[in-house]
C-alpha cells in the first residue's frame, strides 16, 4: 500500500479499513465515495481514507460475501456502484468489533495512563 503523507490525519492500518467499511454500511447502502466521506466525517476528520486503497478493500469484502453491490443512482443523479451489508457481513462486523475493542483496551493497558 502506498503511503503518501499528505496531512496530519492518521492513515488507516490494513485490516482496520475493512472493519470501518462494514461499520459505515450499517446505516444503509452507500457508494465508495460516500463510504470514504462517511469514515472521514464520523472520525471527526481524524482518519484519512486513501481513495485508491478503498476499492481493492471493497472488492475483497465483496469476494468474501460480506457486502454485496449493485449499480444505482446517487443523490445528485450520478450512476454509482452501491454497496450493502450482507448477513455474513453483519456477523463479521460484530466479531471484528468486539475483537477490536479488546485489542484497544489491551494496548491501552500496555501503554499505561496518558502522561500528558
Amino acid at each position, binding site marked *: 500500500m502506498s503511503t503518501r503523507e499528505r496531512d496530519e490525519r492518521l492513515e488507516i*492500518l490494513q*485490516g482496520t479499513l475493512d472493519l470501518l467499511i462494514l461499520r459505515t454500511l450499517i446505516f444503509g447502502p452507500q*457508494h465508495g465515495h460516500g463510504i470514504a466521506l462517511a469514515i472521514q466525517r464520523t472520525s471527526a476528520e481524524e482518519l484519512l481514507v486513501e481513495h485508491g486503497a478503498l476499492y481493492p478493500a471493497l472488492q475483497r469484502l*465483496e469476494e468474501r460475501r460480506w457486502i454485496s453491490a449493485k449499480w444505482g443512482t446517487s443523490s445528485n443523479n450520478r450512476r454509482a456502484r452501491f454497496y450493502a451489508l450482507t448477513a455474513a457481513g453483519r456477523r463479521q462486523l460484530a466479531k471484528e468489533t468486539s475483537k477490536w475493542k479488546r485489542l484497544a483496551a*489491551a494496548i491501552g493497558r500496555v501503554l499505561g495512563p496518558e502522561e500528558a
Partner: protein
Amino acid sequence: MSRRSDDDFASEIEAHIALEAERLRGEGMSADDALAAARRAFGNATLARERFHESRRTLWWDDFRRDSLYGLRALRKSPGFASVAIATLALGIGANSAVFSVIQAVLLRPLPFREPDRIVGVTRNQSLPDLDDIAARSGSFESIGAVHFRALDYTGGDAPVQLKAGLCALRYFEVFGVRAERGRLIGPEDDLARAGRVVVVSHAFWADRMGSDPGVLGRTIPLSGEPYTIVGVLPASVRLPGAPADVWASELVVEPRDAPARDVHILHAFMRLKRGVSIERAQSELHAIDRWLEQAYPDENSGRRRDLEPLREMLVADSRRALLVLFGAVGLVLLIACANFAGLQLARGSSRRREMAIRGALGAGRWRLVRQMLTESVLLSLLGGAAGLGLAHLGARALVSLRAGSDARLVPIRIDAVVFAFTAVIAAGTGLVFGLVPALAASRLDPQAGLRGGSGGQSASGREVRLRRALVVSEIALALMLLAGAGLLIRSFRNLRSVEPGFRADHVLTMRLELPEARYEELSKQRLFRSRLLDSLNALPGVDAALVSELPMDGDALTQHFVIDGRPPVPVGEAPEVLSRTVTRKYLRLLQIPLRAGRDFEDRDREDSPLVAIVNQSFVRANFPSGSAVGARVSWAPDPGKPPEWMTIVGVAGDVNHFGPARPEEPAVYDLYEQTPRRWKRWMFVVVRSPSEPATLLREVTARIWELDRQLPPTNIRAMSEVVEGSTESQKFNLLLLGAFAVLALALASIGVYGLIAYSVARRRREIGVRMALGATSLAIVESIVFGAVRLAAAGAAIGVAGALLVTRLMTKLLFGVGPRDPATLAGVVGILALVAVIASWIPARSAARVPPMSALRAE
C-alpha cells in the same frame, strides 16, 4: 460469484472521481481544479485497477506468496530451528525415497520390453523337445523361446577367460521383442549346424574386447575351442532375465548332445501371449498339453506340470517381502522424523505467541494465522524433501553397490519422475499434516494473553502439555517397533552364522574349472587331466588338494534319479531323486566332513576296482530308516534298456549345509571322479587346504593349472570362508538395511525425546525454582522429571510392544531360529528405550536442578 469486468471497475472509479470533483466544486473550487484534485486524492487509478485485477485471479496465490516470503524471513531469523527441522525431515524423507526408488525399479516400473505384460515364464526348467511340442500344439502363444546360461572359455585375449554365454532356443529374442544394435540376433535359423557357428556379442564385449570395431560383423572369435562368427551386437540398454551375458549363441549348436535330449531340463522357457489371450487361458491350454506329453513320453514327462507365471512375478518373487518390510521400516523412520518435526514446531509456536497475538489483534483471522504457520511448515518440509532427494540419490547408489549381483533388476534403480513425485507428495503431506496440530495450538489464544505474556517462562497450557506427551509416547512406540524388527533380524543372522555347516571352511582355497568339450571329449583325457592336476598340487609343500563337482553353499546342486538294489522296481521316470556329488578321494577328509559309519574313499578305490559310493546321513534317514546303509548297493537310474551300474555304499558322511545355513541338507550320494562313467561331468571345483592364508596360494595353483593347460581359465576363485559368507548374502543385505534404519530411528527418537523433555523442563523453570525455594532438593527435582519421562516411555513401550507383535509377524519368512514374538528381543529393545528415556530426561533435569532458585524465579 459472477465475474466482474474490467470496464465495470473502471467506470466505478470514474464515478468516484466525478463525485469527488462535484464535492470539491461545492466547496468553491473551479471545475478543472476540482477534477485534478479529485484525481490526486484518488491516487494512482491504474494501480488500483491492477490491484483489482490481481485480487480477482490470485487472491490465494497472493496470500501464499506473502506467507512464503514472510515464512522464509522468519526461518532465516531462526537458522538453528530451520536446519534441525530440515535435517530431520531430510533423513526421514530421504530414506523413504531411496527405498521407494528400489521398489519403483523392482516392483512398479514396467519391464523394459515391448508390451511386457504379455511375457510369461515357465516356473520349472524345460527340455527343448518338450518345448518344440508345446510350440507345435499350442495356440495361445505368439512366440516361445528359451535360454540356458553357461560358461564358455574365450581364448582370443591375453589370458584365457570365461565368458557367460546365453544359449538361445526357439524364438528367444522375439519373445522379448529385442532388436540388434548391429547385424542380427540369434534365431531359429541358427539352430541348423550347417549354418555354421555364429555368435552375438554384448555391447560391453564389443566395446571392451573388440575395441568397438565397426567391422566386427564377420569376425571370428574362439570359444571353448571352436571358432564362432560374429553376426550381431546386442544393445547395451537391453537387460534380459538371468543376463547380462557376454555372448549369445544357439543352444542346439553349442550343446548338440544335451539340447535334443527330452530328459535334460536345463532351459528357462519364456512365452509371449497372443494379444487378448489371458494367462489363465494359456495356462489351461498348457496343462492340457502336459497331459498329452505325459501320455506320449511317460519316461520324461510323468507328473510334469508346467506352470506359467507373469515375468515380473518370476523376477521379484523373493525380494517382494523383504522390500515391503523395508518400506514399512522407513515408513516408521519417517513417522519418527515427523514427530520430531511436530515437536520442534510446537516449541517454536509457543515462543511465537506474541507475534501471533499481534497479528491476530490487527485483524488476521485464526485461519489466516494457521495458514501462515502451515505455509512455513510446508516450506520446511519441502526443503527437507529436496535435501532428502539428494540423500536418496546417494542411498540408491549405495543400495545398488551392496547388491550388485542381484538378477532381479532389469530396470535400473534411479530417481525418476515417479520417485520425484512420491518424494514431493510425502514432503508436502508431512508439512501439512504435522504442521497442522502445532499451528492450531499456536493460533488458539486470545490476543490479550498473548500480548501480556513474555516469550517464555509462563507455564504451558494443558493441551500443549498433552500434545508433547503424546509425541514422546509415539516416538518411543515407533522406535520400539523398528528396533524389535531389527533385533529379530540380528538374532536370525547370528543364528545363521552359528549354524555348524558340517565342514571346516578355514584355510581352504576354491576355484572352478570346466574342461572344454572340444579338447576333453574323451573320458580318458578328463581323467588324465584330473590326476595330473591333483598330483601337481599335492606336491606343493603342506598342501592338500581335492576336487568336488558341487561345492557346498556355492548355490549349485545337481539332482539325479537313483535306484537301490533289492528294492521293488519303480516305473521308469518315477525313480526318486537325490543330490549327486562327484569327488576325489581326499575330499571328505580335506573339508573335515566327519564320517559317521563305514570307511572313507581310499587309494584302493580306482578306475578299475569295484564301484563305491558314500551317502550322507539324510540319505540314510530317508532310505534306510531302520538299519545300516553300508554294504547296500545304489545306482544312478540307468537309461532305458541298460543295466544299472551298482555302486556299493562303503560309508556314511555327516550332513553339510549344502544350500546355506537356512536350509537343511537333503539326501546326497558321493561318487568318485576316478570311477564315474559320465563324460559330461567336465566341471569341477578345485579345493586346496594349506596352513597359510588361501590367497597366498592363488598364484602357485593357477600356475600349476596352466602348466597342464594354458587355455583353461579358473573362475569363482574364493576362499571357502567367503563362500560360506556368501551364502547369507541376502540376509546380510536385509539386516544391514533394516539395522541402518533402526539406528536412524533410534537416533531420531532419542533426539526427539530429549528435545521435548528439555523444552518442557525449560518451560517449568519458574515452577522448579518455586519448588526448590520451598525446600525441594535437587535430587527430588531430578527424580520427578526422570520419573515422569520413564512413565511416558513405559506407555510408549506398551504401545510399541503391542504394535511390534502385530508387525513382526509379517517378517516370519525372513527369520531363522527365532520366532517373531521372541521375548528376549522385545525385552532388550524395551531396555534400550528405557535407557534412552532416562538419559534424555536426566540431562535437562540435572541442569535445571543446578540453577539457583532465585535466578530461576527472576529469569523473565
